[in-house]
């Protein structure tokens, strides 16, 4: 159990989820039936209450909340379990709702998304073309920076004002 716990914690520190399939393949040289039993024990034990499980369509994933936030885990879980368009759209929807704010497209060049310009252009086109993401809108700051927002949670005027503040306004009023 200690080896699994350490592996999950160390992976969380560097921003990675541990998948059950990887463990079952013997990455820690523990037999598959034993893995299932140990994971069940970890998830039910008070002492390892920081370990959380995310159950996907084809696999389950584990992380430690001591080293990884629920929000970050949710994003990388979705990157593994869902298509990139839905992951990005859900990320934008969440930001539009809770902060509220539009999301800079350049965020998706960074960890954990790590998409390049060309990939982002293609993803943007697919989002624009799909009815599933029709609430996702684009807005530009005066310096040309591109932002996305969900019109379920935010008006275009609000989104434009907020991205203008982050890109330009805050540097005029530091």
């Amino acid at each position, binding site marked *: 159990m200690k080896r699994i716990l350490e592996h999950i914690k160390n992976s969380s520190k560097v921003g990675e989820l541990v998948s059950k399939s990887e463990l079952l393949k013997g990455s820690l040289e523990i037999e598959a039936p034993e893995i299932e039993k140990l994971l069940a024990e970890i998830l039910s034990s008070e002492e390892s209450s920081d370990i959380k499980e995310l159950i996907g369509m084809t696999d389950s994933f584990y992380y430690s909340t001591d080293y990884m936030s629920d929000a970050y885990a949710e994003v990388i879980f979705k990157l593994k379990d869902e298509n990139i368009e839905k992951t990005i759209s859900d990320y934008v929807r969440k930001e539009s709702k809770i*902060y509220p704010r539009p999301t800079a497209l350049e965020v998706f060049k960074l*960890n954990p998304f790590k998409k390049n310009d060309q990939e982002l252009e293609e993803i943007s086109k697919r989002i624009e073309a799909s009815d599933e993401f029709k609430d996702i809108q684009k807005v530009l700051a005066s310096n040309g920076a591109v932002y996305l927002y969900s019109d379920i949670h935010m008006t275009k005027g609000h989104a434009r004002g*907020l991205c203008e503040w982050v890109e330009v306004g805050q540097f005029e009023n*530091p």
Partner: protein
Amino acid sequence: MNKSYGWAGKLLRVNLTAGKITTEPTSKYKDFIGGMGIGYKVIFDEVPAGTKAFDEANKIVFAVGPLTGSGAPSSSRTNITSLFPSNPYNAVGDSHMGGNFAAQLKYAGYDAIIIEGKSNRPVWLKIDNDKVTLEDASKVWGKGIKDTTAQLASVMGKDSSIAAIGQAGENMVNLSVIMNGLSHSAGGHGGILGSKMLKAIGVRGNRAVNIAGKGRELLKLNNYMMKDLIGANNQHVVPSTPQPWAEFSHKGSRWTAREGLTWGAAEGGPIETGIAAAGDVNRVGYRTMKATFDLGPSAEKYTVRMGGCQSCPIRCMSQLRIPKLEEYGLSPYVANSCMGYFSPQRVMFKGNKDIEEKGDGKMFAAAIGASLADDYGVWCNYGLLGTDLKHGYESGIFKKVLPADEYNSIPWNLLEEKDPAFLIDFYRRIAFKEGELAHLGDGAYWVAKRWDFGDDYWNNVKYGLWSKLGFPKHHSNETNGQVGSLISCMFNRDAQSHTLVNLVGSGLPIEIQKEVVAEIVGSPDGIDPQLNYTPMNEYKARLAKWAIIKNCLHDSLTLCNWMWPMTVSPHKSRNYRGDLALESKFMTVVTGENYTEQSLDLAAERIFTLHRALTVKNMNTVDMRNEHDGMTDWVFDKDPDIKAFTPGTDKMDREDMQVALTMFYKEMGWDEKTGAPTRATLERLGLGDVANQLAKLNLLPA
């Protein structure tokens, strides 16, 4: 004499006319804490009504507080108080500097220096513990701040701190600074020292600040703050990029450390800022990578390190080495933060050409301008210096008001070509008061009057002039609507209050911010989502009062209001709650006296109300609402196609703002019609003597 804890216990009084230096006990100012509080009290009590900034009768107070030099984090701020020359009434103003000066002053054994009178020859004040002398400054008079600092430090030793003025201060340019440590500047009061022919103050101390707390009490408090509370610059508590440890992130956050981002010119090779997670006390100093935040990605490879003030774990001063600067006749080393870098970019309003690689023009203009302005000691009036240049040039006014020879001698071609060499000529003219153009250094109110700038100047949304008194917005209507607007109305220069903006900009979702505000003022309605403002309510008035008095508290303790208060925390386990009683916990441990958040807030309310009383005295009117607290029209007229209180705009409503002023006056216990302090409130705050003086001047509201 009883041992003094926290406070050094005495202050210096230096009369330059008589060449007399005396000490007196600090105890008479204890109700005013220190710093700003001492400054206002001295100016109110000792500077006669009708005095102007450069008059011999004016005084200037350098004051620090009981926490300065104690080891409390972010506590090395010096508060400078005097009449403010760029203000049309020369009403009182504060300028502040970080660096090491404040701590050295305490180590030398002083809580404040009151400078009065006027010398008949250039002098500098040498404070070496108990040995305090006025020295001949003829060898440094006429020199820039860098030379002056180097020469005086060579006399006093490298463990001293030198606060000096440059040529701008000597020439009594209204917009001039006092600076220590070559980059820590206090804007607006340099000319006061120039008028008194006091070139510099050098201070060296080797005593300790006495701490009353036993054992490890102070260390425990420091560790608590470092581990559980502190974020990055401006107390931003989420990183600017998504990171594994963080629940939230925000692109505008100054917690800019991330994997792959380095101090590229560090000695021994680049140092990665990396992941500097909440609670990791050994990496707090890496969190704020301000060089690229302020100057763009070009600055990374020139960043030697991030520096800052004595006793501050947040390193917000970019220290750069840019060899190319030598080709402009400047040192390759430059250090600054925020406005120090942004201001020269405003002067270069036509844009910046690339110098060594694509996109580096902004950084070069900022570095060259900062280097020049900091040597001459030119202040920017929070960016308006460049705005005023732009208006005069683009409106064609300069062609009318400048003599033709002078106009033709100005290298406008460099400005048009976006060449930062323009800055070399520009700052020299301002510092040496060369010609008509140099009146830009008088400040916005005075140049607008002199050159007949019209409504297209005052009411221009792009210029951001906040007050007809000649100062700009500085976290105003874009910062929680009426709350930021109220804060911006209350001082005699740009509001330097960061209490509110640090919460609004913390990076936390609105629901958490609302919960925090509800705990402070009794309702979540005190704060709105950014750019989605609602009409005024009493909770916003309470929040404005809270923000201002915390600011006054910090400038009196003296703590850095860019970092304090610890309103929020980066920790989910604390539900992101900070600790607003932390100042009182430090005060109790350091002084051995029992302070609470409430008792300190009451003292700060006293100090802020004294500022108001002083403003009434300086302006010789009780009608603060109409004569002082007004704002320019763009605040109400911007975004003409949409109404106030529509998502996406921060335009305010005129009637609503009058309601806001009335509610705020009521919260402060001031006269609701005029906004002037009443006798009852002054007496409640222990300011009966102030009420008596105002009554004699017929300046108490009916």
